[in-house]
């Protein structure tokens, strides 16, 4: 876990091997000077459809280059704090097995106004999915497994 705090803002970045306790994070972005808390939860989805084929996911399993993932998350959190005029930010990513419906990533930020939090959440998730060295492996209902290594031509993924 990494916490960087200045007089006016706070940044928390964490990688965890168990379920993410979302409720315990809610106060991390609280501040009397903000008017908006923006949250995003990425959760394991059951169905993946590509073309005419739909596969049923049993679970996702995540692994990371852990020290580099922390470093990349810190970099993008610091950039988001500055670029979107955020007050506070918290990013938690889970590793290991994440069953359908449970959160693999939780992102929260706060700002004086709501638009900054909407924009920040989108930018942070897009950048996380592009640069943070974390990988997911699908285990499908038929028992087969597959690492997910999206390339640009795949278009948006989960």
């Amino acid at each position, binding site marked *: 876990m990494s916490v960087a705090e200045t007089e006016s803002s706070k940044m928390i970045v964490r990688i965890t091997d168990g379920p993410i306790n979302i409720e315990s994070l809610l106060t991390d972005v609280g501040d009397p000077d903000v008017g908006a808390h923006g949250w995003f939860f990425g959760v394991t989805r059951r169905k993946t459809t590509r073309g005419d084929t739909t596969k049923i996911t049993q679970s996702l399993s995540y692994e*990371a280059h852990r020290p580099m*993932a922390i*470093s990349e998350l810190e970099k993008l959190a610091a950039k988001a704090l500055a670029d979107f005029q955020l007050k506070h930010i918290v990013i938690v990513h889970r590793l290991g097995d994440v069953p359908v419906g449970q959160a693999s990533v939780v992102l929260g930020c706060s700002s004086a106004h709501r638009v900054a939090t909407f924009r920040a959440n989108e930018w942070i998730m897009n950048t996380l*999915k592009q640069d943070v*060295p974390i990988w997911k492996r699908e285990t499908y209902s038929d028992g087969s497994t597959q690492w997910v290594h*999206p390339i640009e031509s795949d278009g948006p*993924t989960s």
Partner: protein
Amino acid sequence: MQVKVLLFAAAKEAAGCDSISVEVPDDASAGEVADALAGVLPSIVDLMPSCRLAIDNEYVGRDTIVSAGHEIALIPPVSGG
């Protein structure tokens, strides 16, 4: 010199190990390390073109010079979130 390369996800699975040492000339570039890696691990050749390289937890270009003490990582396309 010998340099150690960390492997992840499909590259780790295809190689059957989470790190491997490769022999490269002194002052080799990251790209030369990647080429040497492909030479000793034919199973990851198809994945290599889409992979990035990192040294000491920072992404680097293929021209970056590698030293023996560096920790090098082969980073397949990421899929966090």
